[in-house]
């Protein structure tokens, strides 16, 4: 019984470290491939359009509702003694530090990671990746690196975009909930604003961008057989990218708290 338990634990540990090793190798290869980025400019632009431009509608909707919800929740829960204008500051910090990057990251984990994993996975099962290799095209340079570069640029931009929309919709919500004026809202924001909050948002977006694209690419490249393999790869990409975003969020928040 104990022997079987140890064997099972050992098996899963070996599997985990194997996966971790392969992910690390892919990550290192992808970052090294960035030096060849100018050769793959059209692939980077394609990936940028897919990750950035096509994500704008979903980011508008989710960030608008995120701000609206924050406005309602904070507005109805602050005590009567607290000045109303304080809500502007609370919304600003909540969005810049946490809600903006994390919600955007999770939404993009669903949209971008899954899309990348299914696209590369379908290429894997139909031997299109082998075909790239036989024509002397490195799949990491051609498929992974452009998506990584596009993710590192597009996702921080999307996070800032989401922050802006969420803050504005937060104001709209506060106006209707507690009758807070724009002047009051801005006064609250000015009261608490520090530039490092914006940097935190951008840094989180940048690191989430790496995680979202790399997990999508990794599970795509590791796809097993057939349609089921592609489905599994897609699910794993979304699940792991989402988990890693939450873990990274904690680590980045803790580290930046000590630095700043």
């Amino acid at each position, binding site marked *: 019984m104990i022997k079987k338990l140890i064997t099972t634990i050992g098996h899963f540990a070996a599997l985990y470290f194997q996966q971790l090793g392969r992910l690390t190798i892919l990550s290192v290869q992808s970052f090294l491939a960035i030096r060849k980025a100018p*050769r793959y400019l059209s692939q980077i632009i394609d990936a940028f359009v897919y990750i950035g431009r096509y994500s704008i509608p979903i980011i508008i909707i989710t960030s608008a509702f995120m701000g609206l919800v924050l406005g309602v929740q904070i507005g109805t829960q602050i005590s009567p003694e607290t000045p109303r204008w304080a809500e502007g500051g609370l919304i600003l910090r909540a969005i810049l530090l946490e809600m903006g990057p994390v919600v955007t990251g999770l939404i993009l984990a669903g949209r971008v990671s899954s899309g990348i994993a299914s696209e590369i996975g379908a*290429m894997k099962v*139909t*031997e*299109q990746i*082998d*075909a*790239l*290799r*036989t*024509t*002397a*095209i*490195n799949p990491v340079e*051609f498929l992974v690196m452009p998506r990584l570069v596009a993710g590192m640029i597009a996702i921080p931009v999307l996070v800032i975009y989401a922050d802006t929309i969420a803050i504005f919709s937060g104001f709209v919500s506060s106006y209707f909930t507690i009758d807070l004026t724009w002047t009051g809202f801005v006064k609250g924001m000015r009261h608490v604003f520090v530039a490092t909050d914006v940097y935190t948002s951008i840094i989180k977006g940048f690191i989430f961008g790496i995680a979202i694209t790399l997990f999508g690419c990794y599970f795509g490249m590791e796809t097993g057989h057939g349609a089921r393999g592609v489905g599994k790869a897609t699910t794993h990409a979304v699940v792991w990218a989402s988990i890693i975003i939450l873990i990274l969020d904690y680590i980045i928040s803790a580290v930046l708290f000590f630095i700043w």
Partner: protein
Amino acid sequence: MVEVKQLKKRFDRQTILDGVDLTLRDGEVLCIIGKSGTGKSVLLKNIIGLLKPDNGTIYIDGEEITQLTEDELNTRVRTKMGMVFQYGALWDSMTVEENITLALKFRNHFTHQERKKIAQESLELVGLSHIAKEYPDELSGGMKKRVAIARAIAMKPKYLLYDEPTTGLDPVLSNIINDLIIKLNRELGITSMVITHDINSVEKIAHRVGMLYQGKIVHMCDAKDMWHQDNEIFNKFIHGDTQLK
């Protein structure tokens, strides 16, 4: 010349190739026949470096390639060797023309116009000059295979490996592909290794034929003499004997 010596490959606990020895001579068409699942495609993938063998050596024009890195394989092996996959493996988000010109864009310093010209010439050679702007999902199975051949020959390879080029095609399309393999061998001097179960194709295109059985090449002979061999396994296979294990 391609020389394979004592090539071994296992997947998990299953031995697929168990000491394959064969030589692909310059200028010939060599067909490798064998039952499904005997490792014929695995053999091709080892030769072009898509898989690393567990044991054994592969020499291409005298250079041992099994220890080469991916970058070295790209510059020393895949510049002179192409592969045609069983189902074409065309990049389905690109047009036919883009499929053919993509590798040229990264490998050589051709201008856009030169790449288009090469694509057109390759498509003309396979009789499909009118489909340059089509996408792979708009093509029939036979057309996809011919485009895959056009993509491979655009790189001007010395060697071309075909993985079951006529599987799933009707007899007319099979003959079109067979004629194409012969044409490329005779007119462009492309040395070819063809993996197939199709004995009619072997008779038509091959100079020599080898049989892969239980991980080894058990018989090799001139294609013109293939019906007069004394190897029992080989004879059973080409006659479709159901007793062959």
